[in-house]
């Protein structure tokens, strides 16, 4: 009778063999001697990792790809949107909330400003920005002859409209925030006391003047309440603000300014773009773009089988091992505007007064302990093993992309077990009861509760590894609720200063404005560590002060702040991240650099269908 069970095993093994065979043998492709120059080039890139299993260095990944081959006329770019749930389909920059919608809208962008490598507005976009620092005013000028995708010319009203939407009492989104209230007259308009925002003034057909309560250097990063997208006034003006979200003008046929325009939508699953003949930089070379939502589990397989040319937005770093061997793509890497960090709870947020109050008796109150915990983490090994060095040990709270503000000379925290032990010994943390873990200098048991976020495919292993790292230097760290906490609950607990949390591992995306005031200021609700000192507040104020309009002053302010944060270690940056993009070989040229002028209207294809991987 066990024969049947064997038969069953055979069936299952057969399944596996088929799966394995489909992957193809590596030998056959290596035997192919007719290599084009491009392929040899790629092999060079990939060989080291294949041979030694050594992960690639971030710098080895290109930011730009150029593929050989004659461009075909037109063609459709196939884009995969890696998401496990249908996209929401709110195609309006003032209303959307989900990042996937932004990834989709990128193909039909309404952005009016172009930015440089430091994410500061330059004069290469539809509009230019002039700042009148003395009068707290910004003057926005638009190019002439720019047209919407329906052929209507872009007007100043189209620039004013988004402000009127966000400020409107019926607006339910998150963008009516402190920054927005910085615009003169925004609050009055929101409260219904005014019909319009008094700080917005149409000077002439191409000029808009915006008055602010105060100005900081962030204005150049489109901060301080400045809005960087236009909305088609000729379409939206007749729709009540409260009904915009459900209107066809947002959901089905938005009118846009980008290289492509939306032609057809299957809600939640695919979008068909066609060339925008009115694009101000000239019509795109492609006929269009076809974008489909693909579950994250199968996105690698989809890329491999040549169903898509690229992904909308980046591919998660954990997907890298799945795609690294494919020979039909080039992997581009782009530093992300984010960092991971380890935070220590040092106080509570006084919700009545809206300020952080430090607890002098906090368990993690000893800076030496915090520093030691930073040195004890072997982040380097995790980056290498799990992230193929697509993440690197962070030395600062400013991601390196902000070239002018990031300071590579900062030492930061790095893996040094001996140093951690030395610090702990020196600070009086000793194992007095012989259980293998250190007690506090007062001789009390020390059990540190860590909150970790669930979700990432390797979150579990990482959390276990961190706790092992700390155990190696004699610190007992346990998980707050006995398990990792999923995203919503995590922030719910961290936000209310749950006593079950002593330390937490999280990440911040910085956005294009690196100003840290909103995350570490005394009044900032997001200052989750609740660490606050007058010195810190002074440093933060300096970064956004009028003096900081001087780039040298601001860079220096950033540097001093970074040093102060490193010293106090209330948050210890752990990782900088790199986003990866897979570009199919039939895409002639693609560029993910932040500071080049690459635009989607230039994209060309060299074949009728995306290349398939032989591996």
């Amino acid at each position, binding site marked *: 009778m066990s024969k049947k069970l064997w038969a069953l095993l055979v069936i299952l093994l057969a399944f596996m063999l088929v799966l394995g065979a489909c992957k193809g043998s590596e030998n056959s492709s290596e035997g192919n001697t007719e290599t084009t120059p491009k392929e040899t080039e790629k092999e060079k890139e990939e060989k080291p990792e294949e041979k030694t299993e050594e992960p690639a260095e971030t710098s080895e990944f290109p930011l730009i790809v150029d593929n050989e081959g004659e461009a075909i006329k037109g063609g459709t770019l196939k884009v995969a949107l890696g998401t496990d749930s249908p996209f929401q389909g709110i195609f309006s920059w003032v209303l959307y909330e989900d990042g996937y919608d932004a990834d989709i809208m990128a193909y039909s962008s309404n952005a009016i400003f172009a930015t440089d490598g430091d994410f500061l507005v330059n004069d290469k976009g539809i509009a230019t920005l002039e700042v009148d620092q003395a009068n707290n005013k910004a003057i926005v000028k638009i190019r002439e002859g720019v047209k919407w995708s329906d052929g209507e010319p872009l007007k100043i009203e189209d620039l004013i409209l988004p402000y009127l939407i966000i400020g409107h009492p019926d607006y339910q989104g998150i963008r009516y925030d402190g920054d927005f209230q910085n615009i003169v007259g925004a609050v009055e308009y929101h409260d219904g006391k005014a019909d319009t925002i008094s700080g917005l003034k149409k000077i002439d057909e191409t000029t808009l003047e915006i008055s602010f309560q105060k100005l900081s250097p962030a204005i150049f990063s489109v901060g301080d309440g400045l809005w960087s997208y236009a909305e088609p006034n000729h379409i939206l003006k007749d729709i009540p603000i409260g009904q915009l979200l459900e209107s066809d003008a947002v959901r089905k046929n938005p009118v846009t300014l980008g290289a492509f325009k939306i032609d057809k939508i299957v809600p939640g699953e695919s979008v068909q773009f066609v060339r925008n003949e009115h694009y101000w930089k000239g019509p795109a070379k492609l006929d269009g773009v076809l974008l489909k939502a693909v579950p994250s589990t199968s996105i690698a397989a989809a890329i491999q089988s040549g169903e898509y040319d690229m992904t909308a937005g980046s591919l998660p770093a954990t997907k890298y091992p*799945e795609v690294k061997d494919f020979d039909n793509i080039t992997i581009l890497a782009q530093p992300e505007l984010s960092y991971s960090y380890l935070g220590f709870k040092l106080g509570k947020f006084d919700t009545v007064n809206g300020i952080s109050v430090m607890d002098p008796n906090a368990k993690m109150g000893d800076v030496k302990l915090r520093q030691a915990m930073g040195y004890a983490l072997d982040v380097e090994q995790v980056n290498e093993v799990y992230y193929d060095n697509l993440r690197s040990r962070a030395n600062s709270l400013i991601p390196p992309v902000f070239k002018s503000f990031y300071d590579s000379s900062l030492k930061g925290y790095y893996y040094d077990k001996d140093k951690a032990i030395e610090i702990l010994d020196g600070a009086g943390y000793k194992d007095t009861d012989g259980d293998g873990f250190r007690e506090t200098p007062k001789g009390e048991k020390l059990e540190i509760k860590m909150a970790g976020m669930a979700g990432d495919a390797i979150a579990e292993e990482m959390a276990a590894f961190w706790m092992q790292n700390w155990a190696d230097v004699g610190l007992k760290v346990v998980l707050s609720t006995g398990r990792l906490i999923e995203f919503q609950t995590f922030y719910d607990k961290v936000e209310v200063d749950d006593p079950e949390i002593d330390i937490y591992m999280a990440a911040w995306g910085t956005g294009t404005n690196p100003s840290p005031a909103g995350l570490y200021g005394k009044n900032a609700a997001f200052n989750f560590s609740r660490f606050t000192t007058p010195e810190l507040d002074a440093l933060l104020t300096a970064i956004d002060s009028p003096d900081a309009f001087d780039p040298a002053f601001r860079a220096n302010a950033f540097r001093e702040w970074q040093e102060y944060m490193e010293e106090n270690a209330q948050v210890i940056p752990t990782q900088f991240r790199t986003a990866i993009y897979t570009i199919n070989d039939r895409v002639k040229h693609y560029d993910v650099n932040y500071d080049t002028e690459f635009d989607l209207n230039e994209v060309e294809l060299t074949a009728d269908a995306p290349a398939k991987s032989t591996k």
Partner: protein
Amino acid sequence: MSVNVGNVKDINENIISSPPTGIQVIAREFKKDKLAMFSLIGLVTVILGIYVAAFFLDQETLMKVSLRDKFAEPGDKFFLGADQGGRSILAQLILGARNSITIALSVTIITGIFGIAVGLITGYFGGLIDNIFMRIIDFFITIPVLMIIIVFVVIIPKYNVVTFIFIMSAFLWVSTARLVRSKSLTESRRDYVNASKTMGTGDAKIIFTEIMPNISSILIVDMTLSFAGNVGLETGLSYLGFGLPQSVPSLGTLVSYANNPLILQEKWWVWLPASLLILLLMLAINYVGQAIRRSADARQRLG
């Protein structure tokens, strides 16, 4: 090609001079069905083996992450390879199987005891008690169990194996209770029960010494099937991420590695052993259950 019209019942009565007890029938059924016997022995051996082996394993050491051994292939260091955290698959398989079986078994026993008790009492007494419980059961039937369990898992703050067992049990006793109720309802109307009542035998005694043995084989079938179902539910929930905490080894967690296509295709040692173990466990349970069911139903007996 033939229709079974022979007086099988007559013959059975002919062969067996005295009506056999439930256990005897079951034992005979197993003797006749080699596959069921094989399954039963295999099941008992595997479960015992897992528990004994798990007893000698130290979960803390085995679950220690060792990054450099990430997805180590089966070999000298790890007999069945290692998972993403460089932890032995074999050890996780044993601990995971123990956890999954313990959970399924606990849930089966809890829901079994509760369901049988409720079913017997409501079926036997009928009337108001029955009415009240039937309303409760009616309500439970409207509950989309899987969804509510997921909601509970999200809510419970200190969430571990024990709470997980209780959450599952809270919603899974209903079908057993319903089955037992309908059986005990018909059984309670039988002559032997009436005879006992007239002789003044206590209700509890009638319920547990007379009715229960008479529906025991149906109970056993129900229990085996719900055991199999619980194994499936536990692994399924773990797969969705609403099951056991990930740090607790579980068959579902191991199988869920297959969610990663790379692992599905190339690192079979991570997910396949657990999948096969589940498959074989379920097959064995089913064959055992089938044999018991046959013994409960004279028409389907083997000879």
